[in-house]
């Protein structure tokens, strides 16, 4: 597809200046590189994308069809961003925010008493900066979600929220606003070789498959929000990296008659913005999926590909009866998500295969809910997650039922026996009781720091109770 050969130099734009970082180890994160090069505004608070102290913004294409006409600011965690990911891209750090005077978001934080120790502050500034320039932001229309991925240990957040609410509208001659009138940089192909380590960023599926065939041990990286945690926390080092973020076929989004197609490489925040209210379960899930800083990078492909038992999207995709389209040396095939997970962190993908898109069939279920049990509402990992979907026939009997769970087995999975207990029965408390009895024995969850096995077991049935209480009991 691409006629231009991939770049072999790691160049990017940082705070408006051209940077050449060729020669940096492909395992290097943007945060490490920034701090080594004297840009110490971004801080490392956790190095796993949970605290947001390292937030920077990237200049990315707008979401609408006029993509080439303008750009938007997308905040991301620099600790989970491989330096190579910003090749060809434009990055702004806290050092690049102020002009001759403080930027309005900086001034608002100063005025509200929004900084105490100040260590988390640069990250908040970058999240608020992106919020300030968010297209469609109305006066007073501050979205608290924009800072839900930033931890502060000093303030209790109230003054930071007040700063967000006090943000003025964009006025006057604002260089950062002007920048958005021009297109964002494209994500070009890239091939880096540093010592024995290699980094590939193809722009087409065919190229990606070719590289994967030649480099069977390559580690696939989409947003990097899982893999880079491994680098930072477990000191894993990658020999060969195959980045999928420039592959055009993985960035499809098509809301068709029969199905919704979401490219495996579309960042979750884009999915969130594009789907609107439906499918409802997905719309309920996405705001609870980690934080916006993570969703700006994380993808459905990544969340499915890691096959974590506590991933948030699998229960929803299982309940929506979704499939994944995969491509490989032998051609393409479709795997139902229900058959995707073959074991703890294992999928049915063959060597050399890539996930291309997720397909959600229509019509969507008429009665559905997503539940996430966790220690806190935002920026957390599930103890138990559940996606429930049923359809009723004209008599009010259950026609389809899909009851899917995460966090209660080695893989995300459906409670098939419980589903069978419902199908053909009236949608009633009695049927739910039967389904609960069947679900109770379907899983053997583990105890860990997020919750005990007994609690998880209780949640399996209690969430069904809650589902009934919220969707059936009232009617």
């Amino acid at each position: 597809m691409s006629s231009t050969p991939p770049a072999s130099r790691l160049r990017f734009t940082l705070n408006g200046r051209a940077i050449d970082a060729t020669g940096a180890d492909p395992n290097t994160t943007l945060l490490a590189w920034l701090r080594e090069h004297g840009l110490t505004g971004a801080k490392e608070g956790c190095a796993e994308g949970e605290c947001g102290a390292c937030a920077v913004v990237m200049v990315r294409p707008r979401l609408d069809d006029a993509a080439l006409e303008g750009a938007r600011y997308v905040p991301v965690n620099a600790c989970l961003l491989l330096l190579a990911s910003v090749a060809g891209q434009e990055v702004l750090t806290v050092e690049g925010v102020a002009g001759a005077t403080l930027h309005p978001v900086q001034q608002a934080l100063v005025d509200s008493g929004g900084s105490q120790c100040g260590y988390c502050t640069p990250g908040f500034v970058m999240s608020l900066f992106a919020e300030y320039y968010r297209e469609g932001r109305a006066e007073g229309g501050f979205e608290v979600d924009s800072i839900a991925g930033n931890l502060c240990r000093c303030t209790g957040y109230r003054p930071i929220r007040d700063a967000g609410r006090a943000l003025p509208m964009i006025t006057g001659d604002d260089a950062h606003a002007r920048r958005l009138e021009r297109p964002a940089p494209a994500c070009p192909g890239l091939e880096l070789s540093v010592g024995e380590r290699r980094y590939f960023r193809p722009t087409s599926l065919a190229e990606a498959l070719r590289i994967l065939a030649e480099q069977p041990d390559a580690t696939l990286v989409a947003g990097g929000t899982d893999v880079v945690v491994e680098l930072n926390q477990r000191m894993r080092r990658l020999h060969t990296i195959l980045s999928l973020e420039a592959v055009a076929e993985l960035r499809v989004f098509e809301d068709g008659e029969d199905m919704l197609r979401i490219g495996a490489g579309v960042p979750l925040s884009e999915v969130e913005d594009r789907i609107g209210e439906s499918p409802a379960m997905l719309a309920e899930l996405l705001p609870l999926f980690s934080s916006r800083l993570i969703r700006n990078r994380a993808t459905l492909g990544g969340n499915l590909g890691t096959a974590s038992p506590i991933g948030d999207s699998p229960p929803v995709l299982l309940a929506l009866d979704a499939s994944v389209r995969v491509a490989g040396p032998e051609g393409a095939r479709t795997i139902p998500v229900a058959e995707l997970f073959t074991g703890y962190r294992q999928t049915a993908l063959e060597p050399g295969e890539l996930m291309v898109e997720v397909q959600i069939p229509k019509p969507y279920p008429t009665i559905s809910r997503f539940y996430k049990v966790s220690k806190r509402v935002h920026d957390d990992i599930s103890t138990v997650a559940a996606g429930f979907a049923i359809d009723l026939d004209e008599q009010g009997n259950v026609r389809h039922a899909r009851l899917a769970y995460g966090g209660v087995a080695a893989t995300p999975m459906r409670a098939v026996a419980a589903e069978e207990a419902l199908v053909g029965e009236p949608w009633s408390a009695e049927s739910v009781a039967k389904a609960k009895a069947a679900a109770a024995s379907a899983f053997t969850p583990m105890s860990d720091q997020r919750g005990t096995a007994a609690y998880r077991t209780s949640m399996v049935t209690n969430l069904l109770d809650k589902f009934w209480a919220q969707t059936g009991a009232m009617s």
Partner: protein
Amino acid sequence: MSIGKAVCHESAEGHVTGAALYTDDLVARHPGCLHAWPVQVMHARATVNAVHVGGALATDGVVTVLDGSDVPGENDTGAARRDEVLFPTEISYWGQPLLWVLAETEEAAKMGALAVRVDVTEEPAITSIEQAIEQDSFHTEPGVIARGDAEGALARATHRVSGELHVGGQEHFYLETHASIASIDEAGSVMIQSSTQHPTETQEIVARVLGVDKNQVVVQSLRMGGAFGGKETQANPWAAVAAIGCHKTGRPVRVRLDRQRDFTMSGKRHPFLGRYTIGFDDEGRIEAFDLELFSDGGWALDLSAPVLHRALFHADNAYYLPHVRVVGRVCKTNACSHTAFRGFGGPQGMLMIEDALERVACALGLPPRVVRERNFYRAGHTTHYEQEVTQADRIERIWKQLSRTSELPAREAAVAAFNATSEHLKRGIAITPLKFGISFTAKWYNQAAALVLIYQDGSVQVNHGGTEMGQGLHTKMRQVAAHALGVTLEAVRVMPTRTDKVPNTSATAASSGTDLNGAAVRVACETLKERLITVAVEMLGVETSDVEMIGGVARSRDGSGDALSFGAVVGRAYHDRVQLSATGFYKTPDIHFDTAAGRGKPFHYFAYGAAVAEVEVDRFTGMYTLRRVDILQDVGDSLSPLIDIGQVEGGFAQGLGWLTQEELHWAPDGRLATTNASTYKLPTIGECPEDWHVALLPKATEPGVVYGSKAVGEPPFMLAFCVREAIRGAIGAFGDKHRFVDLACPATAERVYWAIEQQRAIVGHGQRG
């Protein structure tokens, strides 16, 4: 007036632009700096048989591996006593560092550390308070504070209930992890940049491990990205490693713990076990209280003894205990060495009496609010250690004012009405009071010094012994200095804290930073002002008592005659050979405590407050939301309202985290399973209440404290008790209100869920897991 004014943090512009530097931001200013990474042993207790560092030394970029033979002085960094071997041969807690790899890059140091092989024999470990009690493993003898005849009064009491409560620890999770850089400066001094709350002690420990006099070591604490007590003693070992590395290699050495290392290698808030019996009359008035406390001190003593003592001192919270016996002991376990954390044992002690009063209320069928109120300290009462409770009337004044402003009675009725019709969601609302003693219980710590310098242009540098960790100390010191000198805020610059400016400082801790250092700064500034007024009087040709200096201008009080700028007066003073620098010194008057007798006046005064919380609990999951919070806190005459309100809100949020969601998970083998933000959950903006009303008690002048102000750092932490009690109330609404809700701490969703199930079982619903 520069005091009492709402001003932003003095480094706010630096914070928002990223220009404010922290210790680890200084690496680039140390050319040739080496990076240190620890070799940790992942056993709770083990004997080291052999180490093989060949793999590390063969790693590209590795310069050397530090071991005990590299320590020129003492191989021990213990602050309380010599019990913290820096390079050990016996492993005493899971993750203890054994060796340190020094390399040209952090990456090389990490890879080098991974290449070290350690051969150990695992030994049986003590990993819980219960095990320590069973095996008689303690750091200290029992400490006791008693009054009257607790045993007899309990036996005679109208009613008696007993309880046991486990209180979880808490990770400080300062956003800036521990960091130090050691170098040799141009004068040959060992220069330590350290994120430390206690530069003097860091200086002492570095001098100790190097075997040099303290005058060879300079420690600077530029600013900290949060500390909360976690950098009071715990910064010392990392500074010591950096210093030893620097000594060995002659190059600057940086030690920075990443979050996992910080979690596993540094101490936390002490977990506690409390067992109590409370005796009371038909009205719910306390007749006697008996409390036994055990804290988990971890492997080394550190600050555990005074932390336990503060728990004993605060076993009363705001309540009069006629007959009382509180006894406590520090357990020695194979955990990291638990340490200071905002409240310093106070929260754990206070939580016990709050738990006990909930039992009393339940037993009598009285609202907990009423039982609390009936037991308040009143004027003339003394504490269990026989200190007069000064301004005890404020407890009730705050209580009444907050009840009114929070519309408590009406909202209690609304909560009851909601609960009557809601099956799956229940609400709870609760109010709790707060009394907290202010002063270091180690008397000698209650001193501070300052050095104030005026330059010929009239600009001022203030040096004091306190450190800035985000609490706004430097902001307040700037306000105090400007006010005391009579200059503008802009004329005053507060300098980074250094041991070569002000020696022999106390830790910035115990909420005392402003009280102590502010008084010292004020003394120094008033000395200087007096000298300058003398000069101004001469220049103006008027009487001494006629001249005032305010906002950088000296003039006659009646406004007649010339106005002189501060700079002009200073210029003249210099030419007249008037000294333009001064020191100030302060020691807290009239405090004393006899530990053996358990009697005295350990605190200069008490801080008071109260808070109301309303929550909603989901019975299916145990998850809950905090619907509204109202706070009224006594900070005296606030020196800096924006800063003080920030401390109140931040303290509350931290207490909220401790009581509800921050759960340290230690496996039975001593492994810490929660070692980063993905597994250890601090409050996010989603947990902090949207509907949140914070006020400072008006007309609250505190005599004998700098400009009538009061300490604010720690007390608000305990305001969060009301959240726990509101949750308890909501859980109770699922069952029989006469059955006590036994609520674990922290009250995570899971714990709340099980408590609901227990209640539901009583009334014939529910399941048991």
